[in-house]
C-alpha cells in the first residue's frame, strides 16, 4: 500500500517535471526559482521538514507546558 503510494507520487512528480520543461513559459518567470524544474518539490520537502523541526524545537525549548499549566481556576464553567 505504502509502496504503491510512493510509486504513484514519484510518477506524478516525474510527469510534472516533464510538463514543466515542455511547457515552460519564460515570459511568466519573475525570479530565478521560476526557471528551475522541480524547485517546488524541493521547496515543499525542505520547507515541511524545516517547519516540523523548527516548530518542535521552539515548542520543547520554550512554548510547551503541561495541560494543567493555567491551573484549576480555568476549569470553572
Amino acid at each position, binding site marked *: 500500500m*505504502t509502496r504503491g503510494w510512493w510509486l504513484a*507520487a514519484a510518477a*506524478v*512528480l516525474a510527469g*510534472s*517535471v516533464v*510538463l*514543466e520543461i515542455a*511547457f*515552460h*513559459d519564460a515570459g*511568466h518567470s*519573475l*525570479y530565478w*526559482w*521560476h526557471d528551475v524544474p*522541480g*524547485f*517546488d*518539490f*524541493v*521547496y*515543499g*520537502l*525542505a*520547507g*515541511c*521538514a524545516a*517547519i*516540523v523541526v*523548527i*516548530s*518542535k524545537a*521552539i*515548542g520543547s525549548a*520554550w*512554548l*510547551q*507546558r*503541561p*495541560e494543567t*499549566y*493555567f491551573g484549576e*481556576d*480555568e*476549569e*470553572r*464553567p
Partner: protein
Amino acid sequence: MIAHPGFVLFATALATVLIPAGVARQAVLALGAASALASAAALPGDGVAWTAQVAGYQLELVHADALARVFALIFTLIAVIGVVFALHVRRASEHASVLVYAGAAVGVTLAGDWITAFVWWELMAAASLAVIWHGNTPRTGAAGFRYLLVHAAGGSLLLAGLVLYVAGGGDPSFDAWRTVWSAGWSLPAALMLAGVAINAAIPPLHAWLTDAYPEASVTGTVFLSAFTTKTAVYLLIRAFPGSDLLLWAGVAMALYGVVYAVLENDIRRLLAYHIISQVGYMVAGVGMGTAMALNGAAAHAFCHILYKALLLMGAGTVLAATGRRNLTELGGLASRMPAATALYMIGAFSISGVPLFNGFVSKSMIVSAGAEGGWPAVELLLTLASVGTFLHTGLKLPYFTFFGPDRGIVPAQLPRNMIAAMTMAAVLCIALGVFPGWLYARLPFLPVEYHPYTVDHVVATVQLLIGTGAAFWVLRRKLGGEATVSLDTDWFYRRPLPIAIDALVAGAGSVGEAARTYGRSAVASFGRAVRLAPPGTVPHFDAYRRSIGRTVTWVLAFLAALALIGWL
C-alpha cells in the same frame, strides 16, 4: 425597495425564540437564513440607500458597492450552511445569538460610514460572546470573559480613533476616509487600525481567537470562524489598503499559525491556528494594496469562509460523535465515519490549495500578486505557509484522526443535517475551484486579469504538495499530538496580569492595615500629649472621647464664632 439582510436575520432570530423547538422552528430558521441570502444577492449596485441624519452626521446604513456585496453574499451564504448544520440544536438562544451575530457582520459590510460600522461592530462582539458562552467545555466561561475583555479593548481603540477623527472635523463616510488614509498615518488612523487588527487576530493581538473559539459549541464554532476575522479583513480592505506594516504582519501571521499548529493537540484549536494563518494571506494582500492583491484578499476571504467552516464542521462531527477533541485520543475513524472523513478531506484539499478546489483559485491570487508586485520574499514565505497548511490540515489532522492507528472508537450516529450542511459547503468548494469565473466576476476591482489554471502554476502546486507529503510521511512519528498546551500571547493576561492584580489588591490591603495600626498609635500619642486619656489606660478610641454634651457645646461655640466672623 431593498431588504437589509441583517434585519432579515434579526427577524429570524426573534421568530426562533418565539416558536417552540420542532419542525416549525427548523423551517423558519432555514427559510429565514435563505431569505437573508436572497436579499444579499438582490442588493442594488453602487449607491447609497437608507441614510439617516443623526446628531449632524449623515449616516449610511446601506452602501452596497461590489466589495460590500461580495462580503454580504458570503456572510449570508455561510449563515444558511451554519443554520442547517445546527438545525438539530434545541436551545433557541443559541440559534438567536448566531443569527444576530451573522446579521451584525452583514451590517458592518453594508455600512457606508465609520459610525454605522462601529455600532454593528460592537453588536457583533456582544453576539459573538453569547455564541461562545453557549459552549459547554470546562473552559468556556473563563475563555469567554477573556474574549470579552480583549474585544472591549479593541472596540474602545476603534471608538477612540473615531472620536478623535470626527472631533477633528473628519467626515465619517468611508468615501472621505479613503483620501485621509492615502495621505498617510495619523493618530486616529493608528488607533482605528489597532482596533480592527485585534478583530483580524494579527499577532500579538490574536490569542483571544485560539483561546475562545475551540471552547464554543460544535455548531457555534462554525459561525465564529466566519464572521469576526473576516469583517476585520473587510474593513482592512475598505479602509486601510496598501501598507508595508500590514504586508509583513500578514506574512508573519501566515507562518505564526503554522508553527503553533505543529504543537497543537486539540483538533479545533489546530484549525483555529490555521484561521490566523489564512487570515495572514488576506492581511498581506491588503498590505500589498494592488488591485490584484485586494481582489485576492476578498476572494480568499470568500473561499476561506467556506472551507474553514467545512473543516470545523468535520472536526465538530468528530467531537459530537466521539466526545474526544485531542489527536492523542483519536485515530482510525475513517471506516466508521466515511462521509464526514470524505467531506473533511474536501475542505482540507481546498485550504491546501489543491487544483480544482477553491483555495487554489484564491490563495494563488495573493501569492502571485506578491510576486508580481516585486516582493520575492513574500512569495516564498507565503508558499512556505502553504506547505504548513497542507501539512496540518491536509495530512497531520486527518492522519491522526481518521486514518493512522485505530483506537477502536465507536462514534455515535450523527444528525443528518450535519452531513447535509457539510455537503453544501463541499459542493461549493469544488464548484468555485472548477468555475472560478463566478467568484472573479463579483470581486471589487474589475476586470480580473488572473488565470490560475496555467501549466506552470498547476505543476508547481502539485510538486509542492508531493514534496510536503513525502516529508510528512518520513517525519510523521514526530508529529503525533502531545498532551501539552502551548504558551501564546494570552499568557500575559492569564499569568502575570492576575498575579499583578492580586499583588495590587494585597498591597492596598496592607497599606490600609498599616494606616489602621499606625493611626491608632498616633491617636494614642496625641491623646497622651493633650492629656485627654487617663494615664495607664489601654489606648482605645473611646478612651479619648469627651462626653456628648461637651462635644456639642464646643461645636456650637465654634459655629457661633464662625457666624460672628461672617457677620462682622
